[in-house]
């Protein structure tokens, strides 16, 4: 018989500390010197997620569209800042590029899901908008941050190629088009691979969580399929929008490659 759901109590959670204790034992045995780091990490996981639980509970009690929009905007601002911070290269105007890319993806994809797929009533219901919005923004952040790094690497690698194309009369967009394609390609391959193997090798976290919380696996699977499609579209859209803004930063108004930007930070 299928249980309604498994309740994880605080005392149950304490038992899971066994995992940390076991890891500590192994780390010590191998003299990896990671004991303190692991202890701090475990403590932070506990404190941060517990706090987040209470914060989310409060968020879920708020039923106002302005509150939801504000919250999503704050999430996007934080993600854009984090994406900018993660860059190895200082890309000019990267923060606004991330902001536009994440905002556009969130509006289009989250809007479609809330209004046309899940038919959420009201559309700003925090139970749907917060977790799905978070997934879209988080996935967009990870993908665009990687793509931007790769793109700058491609520009450095292809500097002569780009100048040759410019010298033959190409516009900046055409001169960097191969670099953009390679960067987006590299970003999308992990998403496609995940779509190829999902369910065969591992059960995705969201689905596992839903099943453990007592949701019918068939329903959980439907959610997961929607999430996989959503992830891929977010990555594609956010990367294209971000690159369409970023590549322009590497050219002057006279269609010249700003080579000085490629010399910064090896």
């Amino acid at each position, binding site marked *: 018989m299928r249980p309604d759901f498994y309740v994880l109590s605080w005392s149950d959670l304490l038992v899971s500390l066994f995992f940390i204790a076991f890891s500590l034992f192994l780390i010590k045995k191998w003299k990896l010197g990671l004991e303190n780091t692991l202890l701090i990490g475990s403590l932070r996981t506990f404190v941060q997620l517990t706090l987040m639980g209470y914060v989310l509970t409060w968020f879920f009690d708020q039923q106002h569209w302005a509150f939801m929009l504000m919250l999503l905007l704050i999430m996007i601002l934080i993600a854009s800042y984090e994406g900018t911070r993660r860059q190895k290269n200082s890309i000019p105007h990267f923060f606004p590029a991330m902001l536009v890319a994440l905002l556009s993806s969130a509006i289009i994809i989250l809007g479609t899901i809330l209004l046309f797929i899940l038919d959420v009533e009201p559309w700003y219901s925090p139970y749907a908008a917060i977790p799905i919005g978070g997934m879209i923004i988080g996935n967009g952040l990870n993908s665009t941050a990687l793509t931007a790094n790769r793109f700058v690497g491609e520009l450095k690698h292809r500097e*002569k*190629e780009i*100048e*040759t*194309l*410019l*010298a*033959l*009369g*190409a*516009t900046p967009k*055409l001169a960097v088009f191969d670099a953009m394609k390679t960067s987006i390609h590299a970003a999308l391959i992990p998403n496609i691979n995940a779509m190829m193997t999902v369910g065969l090798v591992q059960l995705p976290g969201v689905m596992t969580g839903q099943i453990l919380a007592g949701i019918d696996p068939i329903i959980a699977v439907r959610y997961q399929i929607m999430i996989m499609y959503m992830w891929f579209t977010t990555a594609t859209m956010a990367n294209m929008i971000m690159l369409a803004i970023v590549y322009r930063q590497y050219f*002057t108004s*006279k*269609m*010249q*490659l700003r080579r*000085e930007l490629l010399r910064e930070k090896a």
Partner: protein
Amino acid sequence: MLFQFKDVHLQVDDLNILQGLNFEIVRGEFVAVIGASGAGKSSLLRMFNALTSPSQGDITFRGVNIDTDIQALRKNVGVLFQNPVVFNGTVRENLLIAGRWDQNISQTLDHEILAALDQVGLVDIKLTHHARDLSGGEQQRLALARTLLNHPQVILLDEPTSNLDPKLAREIMDQIDKLREALQLTIIAVSHDHMLMRRYAQRVIILSHGKIIGDGDFETLDKSHAFEDAGLLKNEVKNAT
């Protein structure tokens, strides 16, 4: 008059790369720009097709400011870099790369492509051959043929033969000089190899620390101190003649 430089300066950060350049270039000239390493030769060459812009001063091409139509300028002013860029693909794909944005190039017929290859001395090359398998000299010729398909009036040479052996370098320069005559091209070549340039150029601009310290024919400048002042040995120059 093809190019006119008026009080052209180039400053990068706090460095004065080029200072107060004034000169003109007329159609059909073969001009060599020579100077020691770091004299500003390559920076100057990049200004002819607006890959670099001056910090101060004006450059005109056929009487019009060089920035007026940059894409048209770059089709008119081709460039051959020191290390030619050969794209991943066949000889044909490399030659027609500008067809991505220029319909005239994408519609180039095979016999026109073969004629361009013939002009640069690449006669036994299949269009389906992988371009990156070509030798250094062949790749340089391929890059030249690719430039020629744009029907330029000017070709800029940025030390195009410095990575080739002297015999091959001379062969390629001979080919370029023939093209200049046949197609009435203007050639502006940057080189540290003034011995090689002496064979082809009618005019030499000598750069030293970003300034022009000599502009004229080789014979006249031989009588001045310009070559020595630019850090180039006069004996070396004379021996080459």
